[in-house]
């Protein structure tokens, strides 16, 4: 048996080499000694077993720690998700209800004020209509269907210039393409601007036959509907300040054109 044994570190080296299956990579000195020394070889085997046990325990510890960490992360994510859900619910349901409610109030208020004003207009218009005399004017060559004179109350001046959605759509349609087919050419401006008290003249050409001229206020109330076979129409009645629309209709009651009138 050799006189000098391996050091603790050399034995540790052999132990690690045994576990890593690289005993052949150790130095010749160590390998030769180990092959011939019972004490060192036995110690090396024992320590390799203990080192293996330690590595297994450490690996298990790391695994447990990872597991715990994962559990903590899951808990955190779960809690965060729950909080996010609560906050989202608050904004979606609770706050939205409040918003809707406040909007409703706002909408109601606005609608009510509009309704009040509209009702006033209508009431005043009705009053005017009732008070004023209905005049049916008959031209020599024209049949006037009906005519009503009305006054726009001072308090709703601005409303008098509001566009009427339905008539506006017609206006836009007939002014993007000037005339359907080539039935007539409107000579008047698309928006005829006249002063209050000034007479209104509507002109066209290249139309043959009977036509109907209709004028509406911006509430889509018909002011006049007149049959004509001429190439112009003159409205002599005093139009109050506001926005009006006129229609050019052929003998088959097809709408050929819609224009605007602004009375300032």
């Amino acid at each position, binding site marked *: 048996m050799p006189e000098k044994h391996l050091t*603790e570190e050399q034995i*540790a080296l052999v132990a690690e080499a045994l576990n890593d299956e690289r005993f*052949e990579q150790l130095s010749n000195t160590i390998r030769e000694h180990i*092959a011939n020394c019972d004490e060192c070889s036995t*110690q*090396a*085997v024992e320590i390799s*077993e203990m*080192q293996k046990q330690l590595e297994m325990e450490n690996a298990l510890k790391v695994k447990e720690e990872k597991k715990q960490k994962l559990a903590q992360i899951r808990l955190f994510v779960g809690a965060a998700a729950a909080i996010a859900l609560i906050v989202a619910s608050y904004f979606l349901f609770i706050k939205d209800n409040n918003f809707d409610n406040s909007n409703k109030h706002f909408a109601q208020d606005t609608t009510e004020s509009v309704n009040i004003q509209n009702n006033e207009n209508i009431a005043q218009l009705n009053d005017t209509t009732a008070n004023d005399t209905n005049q049916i004017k008959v031209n020599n060559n024209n049949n006037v269907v009906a005519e009503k004179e009305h006054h726009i109350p001072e308090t709703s001046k601005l409303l008098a210039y509001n566009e009427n959605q339905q008539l506006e759509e017609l206006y836009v349609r007939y002014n993007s393409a000037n005339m359907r087919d080539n039935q007539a050419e409107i000579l008047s401006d698309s928006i005829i601007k006249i002063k209050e008290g000034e007479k209104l003249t509507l002109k066209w050409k290249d139309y043959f036959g009977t036509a109907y001229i209709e004028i509406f206020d911006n509430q889509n109330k018909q002011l006049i509907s007149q049959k004509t076979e001429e190439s112009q129409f003159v409205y002599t009645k005093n139009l109050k300040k506001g926005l009006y629309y006129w229609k050019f209709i052929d003998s088959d009651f097809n709408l050929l054109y819609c224009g605007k009138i602004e009375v300032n």
Partner: protein
Amino acid sequence: MKLRETKKEARIKDAEVLKYAQIVVSRFISKGAIPPKEKEDISMAVVEKFLFKRDKIDLAFKGNAKYSTYCIAVLNKMCLEVIRKDIKYWDIREFEEYKSQQNFDLSSQNKLIIKDEIRYLNKILILFGREKYKLILFLAFYFKLRIIDKDIFNYHPGLINSELKEIFKQNQNLSKTELFESLGKVVNFVEDKKIKADAVRMWLNKKRDLIIKRLNSTSFRTNYDKDSFQTLFELLYDERCGEEDSLKN
């Protein structure tokens, strides 16, 4: 630089000295070298000894192996010293009592023990270096086991394509004398010697006894003899054959 690194590592590992000491002491207890009731006392004694000599231990560490393995090796040596010193004070009956208290489940526990023993034997064989291949082949041949080509090749690649390869396939029905005569032919071919069968027998017996001694050296629990060693070796070789067959498939 290295000393500073070692000391830094030592400061980190200081808390784990007790843990390592307990691993070492537990192993000696499981081997029957220390009575179980002495575990705490011996663990503390070993830790105290280690910390007392900490500076010298750190100075001796060159950084070639892992520090944890080095600490275990140091603690192992210290534990052996404690055993040598205190064994005369321990009652042998405590060992017997401990053995009788061990309740081994024949199925799972024994399988685990056998697996550990096979691994232990394998490591002892590895420590024989290049001689390992000769040992394994000759022991398998002597115990009349089915020889795998890998072991023939590992001993000497030239044997695979030689006529002597057939010798290894015919060990089942040979007598002991014929076995050693065959092995003699193989040794003379491979190692270019002129030895007789008797020399091979003496060499093989010597190596077998050495293996048995190393198996039993730190263990009071195991007490291998020739027969039990043969059983253990057969189990080890069976594993090798299993690995070889699975590779072929």
